[in-house]
């Protein structure tokens, strides 16, 4: 569906078409909504409310992928076929990893969204990202172990799927290199009774238990960890998800050390964050974990187009403009690393106070971008 949202009063110049391929429906629709709101806010902010770059109005087209890569590829092909040279979106990693190559084959710019897979970084010349990646999560988690990791024991509790395996590998790479012993308790992704795994994680007596968990069994996991009294035995670290998920931690919430990509107000109200919050609030919604990903994507698009004087014809010029670009984003200072298009950004250490519906996050510590930067991956194609 094409939904033109550019402002019409910017003169007669040809519009620039930007395509968004993201989850409008399906299991990730909540993320998709945040992303879209963020993007719109970012577009308004970066174009200073004109909705136009160098006099060319920016026209948005949305394609729903419903979380299905096949639909995403069809949507992307449809947009590219209609002459769109700038794509953004991808709420799910599977989508980003399928759409990225399509963008490269057709030499169009693609800015991946909340998809966290590390593989998106360095995927190809034409693919960028506007969110954080798993490696940055891991680095943030590692920060909880303090300065000296030597001889400490770290256990990763994760699901035995690509996401979980990647997390284990990353923790081994990060903390193993610093001298910690890292082991993993991997539960089958479909397991519903997690009590034994909670028990197993506790029995290993780690100094730090890193929980990398996604999906519907999260509540069951936190219940099991509470019931097996894991919090008394070790420090538990995990990533904080969107606001709707806070109550799922139950009473465990206040005992967990969270690493965080973003929550509303996390950045301490810098000018950009205020702009985003205002815009999103005005649109009748609230910023959440992935709102900045949309906002940042819009900033990147506008910057690239500005550098090319409002033309999207030369993709290489757009790529050039973005590589190495450093700017003020919602979370603070962001840098697009030239070598592999990783987005260097700060991360947060967070605590929850209150339980259930009353749970509120608060920043304990802001981790500077270079402390959580992923290693450079060679560009694949």
């Amino acid at each position: 569906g094409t939904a033109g949202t550019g402002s019409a009063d910017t003169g007669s110049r040809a519009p620039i078409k930007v395509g968004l391929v993201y989850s409008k429906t399906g299991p990730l629709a909540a993320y998709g909504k945040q992303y879209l709101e963020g993007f719109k806010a970012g577009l308004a902010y970066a174009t200073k409310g004109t909705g136009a770059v160098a006099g060319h109005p920016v026209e948005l087209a949305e394609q729903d992928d419903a979380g299905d890569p096949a639909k995403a590829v069809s949507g992307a092909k449809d947009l590219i076929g209609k002459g769109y040279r700038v794509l953004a979106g991808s709420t799910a990693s599977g989508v980003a990893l399928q759409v990225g190559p399509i963008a490269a084959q057709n030499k169009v710019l693609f800015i991946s969204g909340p998809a966290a897979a590390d593989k998106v970084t360095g995927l190809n010349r034409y693919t960028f990202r506007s969110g954080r990646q798993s490696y940055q999560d891991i680095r943030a988690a590692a920060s909880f172990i303090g300065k000296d990791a030597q001889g400490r024991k770290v256990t990763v509790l994760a699901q035995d799927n690509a996401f979980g395996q990647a997390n284990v590998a990353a923790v081994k790479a990060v903390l193993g290199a610093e001298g910690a012993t890292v082991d993993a308790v991997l539960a089958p992704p479909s397991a519903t009774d997690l009590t034994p795994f909670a028990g197993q994680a506790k029995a290993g007596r780690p100094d730090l238990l890193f929980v990398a968990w996604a999906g519907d069994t999260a509540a069951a996991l936190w219940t099991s960890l509470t019931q097996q009294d894991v919090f008394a035995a070790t420090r538990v670290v995990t990533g904080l998800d969107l606001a709707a998920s806070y109550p799922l931690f139950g009473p465990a919430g206040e005992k967990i050390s969270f690493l965080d990509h973003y929550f509303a107000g996390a950045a301490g109200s810098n000018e950009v964050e205020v702009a985003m919050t205002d815009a999103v609030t005005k649109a009748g919604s609230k910023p959440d974990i992935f709102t900045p990903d949309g906002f940042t994507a819009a900033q990147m698009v506008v910057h690239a187009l500005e550098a090319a004087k409002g033309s999207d014809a030369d993709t290489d010029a757009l790529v050039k403009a973005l590589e190495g670009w450093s700017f003020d984003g919602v979370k603070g200072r962001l840098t697009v690393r030239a070598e592999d298009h990783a987005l260097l950004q700060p991360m947060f250490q967070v605590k929850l106070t209150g339980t259930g519906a009353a749970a509120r996050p608060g920043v304990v510590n802001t981790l500077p971008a270079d402390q959580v930067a992923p290693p450079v991956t060679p560009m694949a194609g």
Partner: protein
Amino acid sequence: MTAVLKRWWPLGPLVLLLLAPYSALPLPGLLDGPLGSPGSLQLLALCLLYGALASGYDLLLGRTGLLSFGHALYFATGLYATDLAMLEFRLPFAAAALFGVACSVALALLLGSVGLRVTGIAFSMVTLAFAQAGAILVQRNPGGLTGGEEGRSAPADLLPDSLVGIQHTANLYWIALAHLLLTLAVVHWTASSPTGRVWAGIRENERRVEVLGLRPYGFKLVAFVVAGGLAGSGGVVYLLLTGGATPQAASSDATLALLVMVVLGGSGTRWGPLLGGVLYTWAAHRLGDLATSAAVAGLPAALRVPLSQPLVLLGALFVAVVYLLPGGMARLPARLRSGRTGRTGRTADTAAVPVSEGVA
């Protein structure tokens, strides 16, 4: 005159399909963009692919009476085996495709020869079990091969240049169309072969076939393997169309979708599964647009909420077809012709006599 029309009418739609890539006809509502545009061709190609897959699946369901809940496994095998042959063995595409289809056939032969030892609902559940095992394996990402829930995208450098890039979407469309024609030819030809005649007998009353001196097992296995091979080749085409292998292809939902397509169109009919596959795929892609359109957003909540979920619409559509068009859409013309709707006395009275009664 009408006899000629009756025999040759499929040529009409075929000519239309052959002309599609050269046409700039806008079909507002049906397609988002003109007929020959890459986006439309991509969607059409997917529709044709699923039409072919449903037709191949109906070889089991409608022709032989085998209700398999695991057909997606052979589709996914063709898809992943081809992709991995390129990624891991660096085989060129053609060789990888052959390898992929061969893998599907081999797997269908292996699992079919085990699963067909039981009949009825037990067979359905064994196929479901095998397919579920396959889906779990793909999800588990063994040895980093399948990429788990992220999947693996196809290596563009090993694909022929004429199949890469948006400007070549028409080529993908031709491949999907060719695959469809091949599938239809195989299905129709085999169904009217001596073996197909035995399939019909098995579908209606398996024990009675045995009494004629034929062992149903072998014939069912042939059907299973042919259908598995067709599904595998569908997997290859899917790889080209979507540029990668993702685990959704192996899920039990994928088999269920095939089942829905076949039933929508009309199981056991010549064109029904094709029709069902095309319609379902089209609806699955286009209903999303309807669901998220501005027109829906303006409705009151009681209407907006169901309408904004494509699956609600699809489920409701499916129920409506089952309910109002027994036998699927392909039987609609016949029903209209006979001028009577609603009465289904014959289907009730001629339901297969259970074997236990037949030998009482």
